């Protein structure tokens, strides 16, 4: 091609490519949002229950009453009161060992008329099964509750508690069993601190809270001076805190799911607790933590899935905790460590796709590995020379550069630049640069978690 041809050819090349680029952009393209991990269970936005209108009949043995209160008063210990239809009253059960339940073919509802507690249980060994308790008082200062449990060994199971301030209040009595209940607070009461808690455990020991569904309350399950309580398989959503511990030692949280709350599990001022195999997803409210550890000592946080929260784990002034085998996925900050948290053992966790894996406010160097392995870091440079699944290159998730950015957040404008990449590399490989922060001397080569399936929704389309 001659010179003039080349001159024109270059112009044509540029114009054609620019036009093509503009053309394909104008044509609709699927804008790719940042993928968010999908760890939430499918939880309903609203519960719609069919109202019960037929007038109530309570049966004890062969006697019938039009009031639950009179039926319960008439019942001997260990007798069963069978309800059918709608009762508008507030009931106090003083007889031990009675069972109150709906007739098998009819849902019974007790409506408290918006005042005080709806059902008060003063007799031990009472069982409430398959009832619908609704419409307690609205006053948090008098602790208006759907079910007020004031005797040991009470069981509440398969029931609904709706339109309440507090759902079920266990008031200083032991061995309550709360199983498979649905507790729905008053969504219209705003802010959430004006509501009561779904389940309130006060000074109780040996209580079991299992497979309940709690939403639209203040806190899902609130512990105060409770100990040796097991909460298992509960679903907690649209709450302030899913679970809230205060001064409650030696309790266990297992297999619970907390989604769309301010804080999934807000654990405070307690010792020797176990938080195992729970899910905390999309807890992005004002404070926005998956698991908050505030002055939690000598406790275990193991095998939890913590995805899409503002902060995955927020550890504040907590000492001697075992934080192992958790998956921290797609949080803004994976693990935020601050205010004198120390002596923590952090091993076997996977840090994947967090905007920042670790934020550490500390003046010490924290070592996050055992002799045979540390954690998996999705952005670590690993080199496994002896093929044992453990990298021989140390990883510094939080060091000099992170400290800079923490103190001057806007400095992040510069810290992706090539010069800072070089500084970060130097910090990874030169042991001379040992600034305070977090170090993992034995990062794992492969993630011990199957985190990819949380993103499957995004790759399907």
């Amino acid at each position, binding site marked *: 091609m001659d010179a003039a041809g080349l001159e024109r050819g270059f112009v044509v090349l540029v114009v054609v490519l620019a036009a093509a*680029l503009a053309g394909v952009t104008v044509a609709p393209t699927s804008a790719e949002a940042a993928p968010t991990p999908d760890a939430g269970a499918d939880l309903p936005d609203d519960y719609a229950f069919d109202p019960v209108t037929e007038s109530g009949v309570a049966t004890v043995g062969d006697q019938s009453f039009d009031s639950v209160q009179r039926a319960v008063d008439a019942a001997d210990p260990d007798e069963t009161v069978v309800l059918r239809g709608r009762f508008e009253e507030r009931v106090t059960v003083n007889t031990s060992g009675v069972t109150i339940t709906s007739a098998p073919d009819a849902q019974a509802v007790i409506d408290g008329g918006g005042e005080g507690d709806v059902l008060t249980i003063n007799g031990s060994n009472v069982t409430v099964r398959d009832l619908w308790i609704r419409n307690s008082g609205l006053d948090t200062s008098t602790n208006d509750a759907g079910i007020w449990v004031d005797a040991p060994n009470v069981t509440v199971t398969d029931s609904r508690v709706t339109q309440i301030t507090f759902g079920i209040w266990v008031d200083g009595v032991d061995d309550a069993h709360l199983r498979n209940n649905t507790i729905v607070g008053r969504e219209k009461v705003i802010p959430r601190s004006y509501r009561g808690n779904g389940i309130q455990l006060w000074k109780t020991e040996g209580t079991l809270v299992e497979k309940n569904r709690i939403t639209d309350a203040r806190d899902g399950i609130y512990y105060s001076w409770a100990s040796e309580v097991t909460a298992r398989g509960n679903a907690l959503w649209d709450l302030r805190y899913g679970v809230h511990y205060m001064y409650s030692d030696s309790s266990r949280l297992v297999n619970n799911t907390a989604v769309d709350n301010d804080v999934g599990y807000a654990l405070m001022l307690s010792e020797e607790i176990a938080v195992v195999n729970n899910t905390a997803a999309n807890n992005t409210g004002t404070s926005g933590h998956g698991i908050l550890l505030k002055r939690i000592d000598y406790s275990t946080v193991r095998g939890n899935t913590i995805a899409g929260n503002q902060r995955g784990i927020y550890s504040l002034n907590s000492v001697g905790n075992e934080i192992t085998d958790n998956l921290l996925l797609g949080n803004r900050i994976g693990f935020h460590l601050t205010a004198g948290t120390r002596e923590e053992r952090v091993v076997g966790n996977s840090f994947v796709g967090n905007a920042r894996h670790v934020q550490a406010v500390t003046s010490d160097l924290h070592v996050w590995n055992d002799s045979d392995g540390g954690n998996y870091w999705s952005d670590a440079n690993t080199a496994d020379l002896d093929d044992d699944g453990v990298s021989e290159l140390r990883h510094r998730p939080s060091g000099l550069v992170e400290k800079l950015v923490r103190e001057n957040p806007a400095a992040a404008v510069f810290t992706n630049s090539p010069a800072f990449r070089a500084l970060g590399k130097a910090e990874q490989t030169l042991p001379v640069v040992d600034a305070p922060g977090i170090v993992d001397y034995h990062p794992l080569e492969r993630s011990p978690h199957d985190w990819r399936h949380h993103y499957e929704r995004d790759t399907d389309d």
Partner: protein
Amino acid sequence: MTDSESPETDGGVADETAVRLPTRGRDGSALQQVGTVTRLEYALSIRNRWAFALTGLFASLAVLVVALGGQGGVVRSDAVVVSLVELSALLLPLVALVYGYDAIVGNDEAGWLGVLFALPVPRSRVVVGTYVGRLAVFAGAVVAGFGIGGLWLASTGRLTAAYLGLVGAAVLGGGAFLALSLLVSTLAAEKTHALGGTLLLWVWLALVHDLVSVGLIAADVVGPDWLPVFVLANPVTVFRVLALQAVPTVTGGMADVLVGSGLTTPVLVGALVVWIVSPVWLSSRLVARRSV
């Protein structure tokens, strides 16, 4: 080429005579004179193959990044944009500075500048025309080169506005780096001085400036309010921030970092325009001091 098509050439020395010198003299308007020098500079850059070398370089860079970005099966377009920006932040200023360093001093040593300055055209217009001609080639190469990568990205259905923003930022940024090299070229007495000067400039822009900026802020020499000033003081940083501001922070962008810093798109674009106009204007003034 045949003789009948181009009567002004004799087929033997076409390369020399096909280049038309500005001949309109005082009659031509400033725009026409600049335009003529621009066409001249453009034609020279095509003929010495700079245009195609640059296009090839940018195309291979973009294609490489898109190819690597698609290794996991799904092309992550944000990751492609971020990687391309980080690579461009090093390469784009280097290429622009190397391409532009001889614009004045090189032509001077070759004697070509003497020919141009002998014409009845003000020196400043020759300088501006030279710059615009090279800018046209450079911008064309950026658009064509990154365009090829963009089209490939589009063929996987993952072309986003962020990629187009990157191309625009690269054109503006390249213009700024080219303007700086023009200034160095105007000031330098010898070609080697110009080359050394542009390389030093590159080390400052691409590496040192950011470290010094954060160092000053971190050491509390100046407050964090100075951060936008430090950003605007370096065209490479302005280019990076401009290209990355649409990308979510989670995937390596700066969408959240910049909130409240006052570094909006118009401010950043304006800064790059200033980085283009002021070195060119300075060059057009200072060229009068050269003895050709």
